[in-house]
């Protein structure tokens, strides 16, 4: 841990649905440029935690901060809406099922939000789309509809769409889980490239080897708590908790038969 | 207001009568039309398709006018009520033909193949395998047809049958209370439609249990 002020700061995050506690007092600090992976069995609360960062699934307790701004501020409805729309522009999110807009071409998928929210001109928007799509290797498909793309291509466009807002941090919610195995690598490559550019990233994933090669830090979550966290070489090679060992044993067995 | 009420009740009765008779005629024509549409004979298929296309492709009001005003020119003399029942019934029959045909062709081909492989003839397969299943499928969409048809009975106001809409129009003219008259007639229509809807739902539930 450094003394530096954290870039993303989650303090005492709690979330419950009725009596079911999904997150039990979670703390997570991410420094600027850091890449953090969250692993754990399904139902462990890892996606809920990620979705709490941009308040898609609001916490029932605790605080989430991005730099010096509290994201989940309690505000009257109207003010909250203005506030959260502002904050979300600074947080990119990539979903398991891509959630591309099927009625828009690839180009418009990328430029919709910048055009509406940043008031850029059509020419600027075109340039932005070309830049971002080039970065993820999808420039050739700029005038295609999402339905004409493979899963891996869709996810790369979704990443470009998020990057087009020039976010300070990127959230990945099982970005490769819905992909056929042979399409996973192209998305991983794009994410690695972002890592090399020192993008701050929080990644919920099942890809242990990817997490190990890219991340600075790994959190293992189970049943709403962080069981263990540390550098990837420790978590993956020398975990201390039995639950972590058990999870990794099952998971790695499944992944590399 | 109390004065107009008995007139509305009597008019509602005419609307109910029109609806019932039109439904019966529509169902009969629907069965004939669907049989023709699914027939082995190309001519019958063509006639069935032409019936559906012409009567769904032109306004019911015009069909009614041709029958009522034009009928006498070709030797068909009907009073307004008879023309209403026959005109609307033929129109409803075209919609019901398509509903019934849709339900029949929605039955899984595997059902037909299964019946044919055990040696059942085409006719037997239709009667004992396809129709019983299609019957259940068509109750709800036929209910939608009947609902639309009840509202279409208002068209006979244009040939001066004294039903609900005609009565409402007449009293709007004499009382200058369009909203009140609309509400009275509207409520009566909605009661008729509600009861019909309940009956269809009951039939549908019953068909699903067996």
């Amino acid at each position, binding site marked *: 841990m450094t003394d530096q002020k954290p870039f993303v700061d989650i303090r005492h995050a709690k979330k419950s649905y009725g009596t079911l506690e999904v997150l039990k007092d979670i703390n997570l600090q991410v420094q600027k440029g850091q890449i953090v992976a969250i692993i754990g069995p399904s139902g462990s609360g890892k996606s809920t935690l990620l979705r709490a960062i941009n308040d898609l699934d609001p916490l029932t307790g605790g605080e989430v901060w991005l730099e010096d701004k509290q994201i989940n501020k309690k505000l009257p409805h109207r003010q909250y809406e203005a506030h959260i729309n502002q904050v979300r522009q600074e947080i990119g999110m990539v979903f398991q099922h891509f959630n591309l807009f099927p009625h828009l071409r690839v180009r418009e998928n990328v430029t919709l939000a910048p055009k509406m929210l940043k008031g850029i001109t059509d020419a600027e928007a075109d340039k932005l789309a070309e830049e971002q799509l080039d970065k993820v290797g999808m420039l050739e498909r700029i005038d295609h509809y999402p339905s004409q793309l493979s899963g891996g291509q869709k996810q790369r466009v979704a990443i470009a769409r998020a990057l087009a807002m020039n976010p300070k941090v990127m959230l990945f919610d099982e970005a490769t889980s819905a992909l056929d195995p042979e399409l996973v690598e192209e998305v991983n490559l794009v994410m690695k490239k972002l890592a090399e550019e020192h993008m701050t990233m929080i990644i919920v994933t099942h890809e242990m080897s990817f997490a190990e090669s890219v991340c600075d830090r790994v959190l293992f979550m189970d049943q709403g708590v962080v069981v263990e966290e540390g550098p990837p070489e420790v978590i993956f090679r020398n975990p201390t908790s039995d639950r972590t060992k058990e999870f990794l044993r099952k998971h790695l067995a499944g992944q590399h038969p | 207001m109390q004065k107009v009420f008995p007139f509305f009740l009597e008019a509602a009765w005419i609307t109910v009568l029109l609806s019932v008779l039109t439904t019966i005629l529509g169902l009969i024509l629907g069965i004939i039309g669907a049989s023709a549409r699914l027939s082995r004979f190309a001519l019958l298929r063509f006639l069935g398709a032409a019936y559906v296309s012409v009567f769904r492709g032109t306004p019911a009001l015009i069909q009614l*006018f041709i029958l009522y005003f034009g009928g006498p020119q070709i030797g068909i003399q009907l009073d307004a009520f008879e023309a209403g029942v026959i005109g609307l019934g033929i129109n409803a029959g075209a919609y019901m033909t398509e509903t019934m045909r849709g339900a029949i062709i929605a039955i899984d081909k595997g059902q037909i193949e299964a019946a044919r492989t055990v040696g059942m003839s085409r006719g037997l397969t239709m009667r004992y395998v396809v129709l019983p299943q299609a019957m259940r499928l068509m109750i709800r969409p036929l209910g939608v047809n009947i609902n639309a048809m009840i509202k279409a009975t208002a068209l006979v106001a244009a040939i001066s049958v004294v039903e609900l809409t005609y009565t409402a129009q007449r009293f709007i003219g004499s009382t200058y209370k369009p*909203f009140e008259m609309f509400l009275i007639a509207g409520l009566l229509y909605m009661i008729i439609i509600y009861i019909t809807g309940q009956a269809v739902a009951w039939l549908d539930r019953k068909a699903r249990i067996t």
Partner: protein
Amino acid sequence: MGLDFTVIPQYMDIILWGALWTILITLGAAVVSFVGGIVLAVIALYGPTPVRLPFRIFSFLFMGTPLLLQLFLIYFGLVQIGIDVPAFMAGIIGLGLHFAVYNSELFQTGILAVDTGQIEAARTLGLSRMQALRKVVVPQAIRDVIPPIGNNMIALLKDSALVSVIGVSELTLSAQRAIGSTYRPFEFYVLVAVIYYIINIFMEAAQRRIERRVQASR
């Protein structure tokens, strides 16, 4: 009395003018019903409760009663509250509102069927709820319900015959005028039926074309 179709040519111009009016009224009412349908759907789903209730009652009344009755209400009702609109405007409003209610039901189903992930994706980019609805949800809902909306528009064409009873000089009333001086109802009503049928065929062809074009963005 027999049939005599030779009387038709000299009234053909009246009939064709009537056909033109029928097309104009159908188009006008189609626009009203389309835009109105979207507005009604968004209000029904996302409007504040005190607004939703009167809209519900309005929809309920319009779906449960005949169009002809509604046309009488609108035509005489507008006069009653001191608004004197030309008959053809009353016709467009009446037909438009009637089908707006039916379209609204379709749009609501369409909006609810759009994957919640779509709204989430738009919101995470920073779009507001209304922006997400306008740019992401509603366009997809429209695309998905185009076939049944098309059916409603074809029904609207045929129901436009009803505005003849409130004195709009469209196709049906034009025929009645010609019949008034020739006493040849059969000939003119059959002619008018043929014209409706032709317009109907064109609308069905247009509907198929639109559906094909929309397929690409699925």
